[in-house]
């Protein structure tokens, strides 16, 4: 076995030194009656060639999207990630290291994380960002818990129905065991945006915070400033989940719109989609809340000779020190994906990021205009970024998707009925910089054919 280096001589010599006759003797602390008596029932081991063949055969049972025409988004956006990103994170020095507990031999990981924190804070418009969370959905859940932690005596958190259903469900799962916290969902209006009148009615001194998503599930850009205004009247906090991180090239940041904290998902920026993971959960907040933040933080400091360096800091928030009183139980996060996110953002840079955002937006405007004239836009009056909802002619968006897929070779989007039966007729269409004009025109033709 190529990963197991010990020769027969090695074994003999080492056992001899240890003073036992067999390896099994080292396992005597496991009572005999508990021990596995037979070999585990697993497939026969494979050599590398066979592994490649077997995994290769499995991989082609999936349809890789490749250069095919796809308008599938809904929280997992297909952006073009430069080869440089994967090349750099594939350096063994990065991917075979672990949490930088010893800063003197981990400056690469630490400085990379510090840069990631800066980029994330800059994108979201805040003073502080952490070194990553698992994903956008668990970041939403952590944000709910954090707002509740900051506002100790308040027991309600209001969540917009426009938050991605999987993130909303994750918030419910995470708060199930928290006795003094109730979640309440604020519905969307018929126009697809957050029902602000409903929000006003629900707002009270008992509300710790509001979690909304913008662009929301339907791709609609919410009036975040007004949500903040409503919340601040009762001193409630506001967290924006940024539905599509590239929107921040043209849309104002949560921080600048008055939010107290913000979260997001970096999947699609840090690498290929991998069926949804690993991506990276983003979280940033105002300076005054930093001690309530979950997750790791890297800070700048100096060594004994005054040279600049980086360390894990404010660790007293964390589980390994504060144990049951920690701000979260998170330990391992998504460090390598955070690094990839930082690398991609550095490549894009100030201008490239703005341009990317502009291309996504312009493509979406082009396609929306065309579909608008077909009269199938579900929320024609709302403001969108790169994603929007089409009402399926015939009323069954899943059926429509399959038909277009089979007849036209185009993936037209995500049927929202997968989340809720009441959205059975809704199809979420996403356009990114990867969609050509030809693909967009083709999609329009496909919809026309199904009118």
């Amino acid at each position, binding site marked *: 076995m190529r*990963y197991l*280096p010990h020769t027969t001589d090695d074994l003999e010599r080492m056992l001899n*030194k240890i003073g036992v006759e067999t390896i099994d003797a080292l396992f005597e*602390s496991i009572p005999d009656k*508990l021990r596995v008596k037979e070999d*585990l029932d697993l497939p026969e*081991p*494979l050599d590398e060639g066979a592994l*490649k063949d077997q*995994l290769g055969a499995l991989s082609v*049972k*999936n*349809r890789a999207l*490749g250069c095919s025409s796809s308008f599938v988004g809904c929280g997992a956006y297909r952006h073009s990630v430069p080869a*440089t990103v994967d090349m750099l994170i594939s350096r063994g020095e*990065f*991917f*075979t290291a*672990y949490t*930088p507990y*010893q*800063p*003197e*031999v981990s400056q690469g990981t630490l400085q*990379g994380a510090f*840069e990631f924190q800066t980029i994330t804070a800059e994108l979201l418009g805040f003073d*502080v960002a952490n070194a990553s969370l698992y994903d956008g959905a*668990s970041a939403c859940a952590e944000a709910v818990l954090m707002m509740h932690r900051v506002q100790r005596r308040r027991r309600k958190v209001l969540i917009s129905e426009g938050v991605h259903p*999987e993130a909303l469900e*994750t918030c419910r799962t995470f708060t199930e065991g928290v006795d003094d916290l109730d979640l309440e969902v604020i519905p969307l209006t018929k126009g697809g945006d957050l029902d602000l009148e409903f929000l006003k009615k629900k707002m009270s001194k008992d509300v710790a915070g509001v979690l909304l998503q913008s662009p929301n599930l339907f791709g609609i850009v919410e009036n975040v400033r007004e949500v903040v205004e409503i919340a601040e009247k009762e001193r409630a906090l506001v967290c924006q989940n940024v539905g599509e991180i590239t929107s*921040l090239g*043209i849309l*104002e940041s949560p921080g600048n719109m008055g939010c107290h904290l913000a979260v997001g998902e970096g999947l699609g920026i840090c690498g290929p989609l991998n*069926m*949804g*993971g*690993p991506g990276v959960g983003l979280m940033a907040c105002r300076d005054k809340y930093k001690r309530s933040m979950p997750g790791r*933080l890297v800070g*700048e400091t100096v060594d004994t000779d005054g*040279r600049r360096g980086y360390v894990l800091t*404010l660790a007293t928030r964390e*589980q390994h020190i504060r*144990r*049951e009183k920690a701000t*979260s*139980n998170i*330990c*391992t996060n998504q460090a*390598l*994906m955070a*690094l990839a996110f*930082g690398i991609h953002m*550095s490549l894009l840079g*100030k201008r490239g990021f703005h*341009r*990317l955002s*502009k291309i996504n937006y*312009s*493509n979406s405007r082009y396609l929306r205009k065309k579909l608008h004239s077909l009269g199938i836009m579900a929320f024609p009056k709302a403001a969108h970024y790169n994603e929007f909802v089409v009402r399926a002619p015939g009323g069954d968006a899943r059926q429509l998707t399959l038909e277009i897929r089979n007849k036209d070779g185009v993936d037209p989007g*995500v049927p929202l009925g997968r989340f809720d039966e009441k959205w059975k007729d809704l199809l979420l269409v996403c356009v990114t910089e990867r969609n050509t004009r030809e693909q967009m025109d083709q999609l329009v033709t496909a919809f026309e054919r199904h009118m």
Partner: protein
Amino acid sequence: MNPIETRGILYHEPLIFELGAEGRSGASLPKLEVEEADPRDEFDSKQLREKSPDLPEVSEVEVVRHYTRLSQWNHSIDAGFYPLGSCTMKHNPRINEVTCRLPGFADIHPYQDESELQGAMQIIWELERFLCEIGGFARVSLQPAAGAHGELTGLMMIRAHHVKNGNPRKWVLVPDSAHGTNPASVTLNGYKPKQIASGEEGILRPEDVERAMEEVGGDEVAAIMITNPNTLGLFETHIAEIADIMHRYGAMVYMDGANLNALMGYLQPGKHGVDVMHYNLHKTFSTPHGGGGPGSGPVGVVEELVPYLPRPTVEKEEERFVWKFDRPLSIGRVRSFFGNFGVLVRAYTYILEMGAKGLKEATQLAVLNANYVRVRLQGKYTLEYKRPCLHEVVFSDRELKKETGVTTMDIAKRLVDYGVHPPTVYFPLIVQGALMIEPTETETPEEVERFCNIMESIFDEAKENPDVLHSAPHNVGLSRLDEVQAARRPKLRWVAKKDEKKA
């Protein structure tokens, strides 16, 4: 520049924000084929970004050099021995990195139709069965993204089970040697941790568990969380008796499987009283640690808890794999999509390569290497529990510190000078100045021997010239970093100072 600082490689690398020039970019973006849209037509000016995010302005070459230089200032498994206890820093096979990047695994969207994801779903289905077999469980959820996430998920299922039976209960018993994530997960589930002390032999005694149950009222105890082997590297020999006690009160047994590398092919915990266990694919199953993730923390359960598994699960219907969302008792999702799928492909590849015999042999050699270190160093460093260990061994600085003033931190920093990553230090908390050493099975006997020799040299240095340890490390680009200042006046991001940039 001081030539000693470079050692032929540039170490002191500016921040990426301090590089480049205004107007420079490393982006490669498509030409816009449609009319450029003006967001002001659609949005209020207050919704639009006034000022672009202040991202770096650098070329691709600058990015490549910057991150390559940063990487060179990392210790890694690829570069050398990394005996970080409880983290199982074994070799990360390269074939895993190839298989997970196959387009059919990397370039798939979570919301493609099931018919287009059959290969991926088969991997999830089969990996679940492999882990069930290794751990002795009925089902496994692959959704959690890391060990702590798995713990949280496991306790949620335990809570859901108790709620179903009419009372969520109040307490979870946690040994004093537990990972910090254990009590933190307990609190997140609305439970209170009740600490139990390890017995003199470094393991839990059934009578202490029994007493703890009586103290808080066994009917109010939801579960016990046991790390096995525990953080001293010792097997919890009485696990089955302890499980019996818990079950008598209707309480559950949660096992932290971070140290499963010590048990493969020897113990299937699910068959001997453990009701829930999380696995760490980034430890036991060779997926890379990535400088702190992405990991994967699947959680296995016995039959009784199957209804509560996060949804969706993957089911096999005839020859087709399907997502099953309709699970009325499920605790719900613990994250988006289907887990860190890219990590799952790597672990799946590893298990296929190793097979049952290979995994068992990995466990045997991991335990052999750890015991070799134990025997080689026990004359010099203090061994609190003088008995064979499993995959890791814990020493204390107690005697050495008393005699020479040298602390565990000094030893750790001195190891850096010898090109070895320090072990886990000051954990578990129940050992004074703990040094927790986990060599793993993939280290050659020569490398293990070299480490022991280094530890002996450091021991001698501590006696002859303790100052060289107090002021270590000497051979890296930075001396000890001021963690006090970092915490007192936190500087958590770079801030542009006018004129300083690009100076």
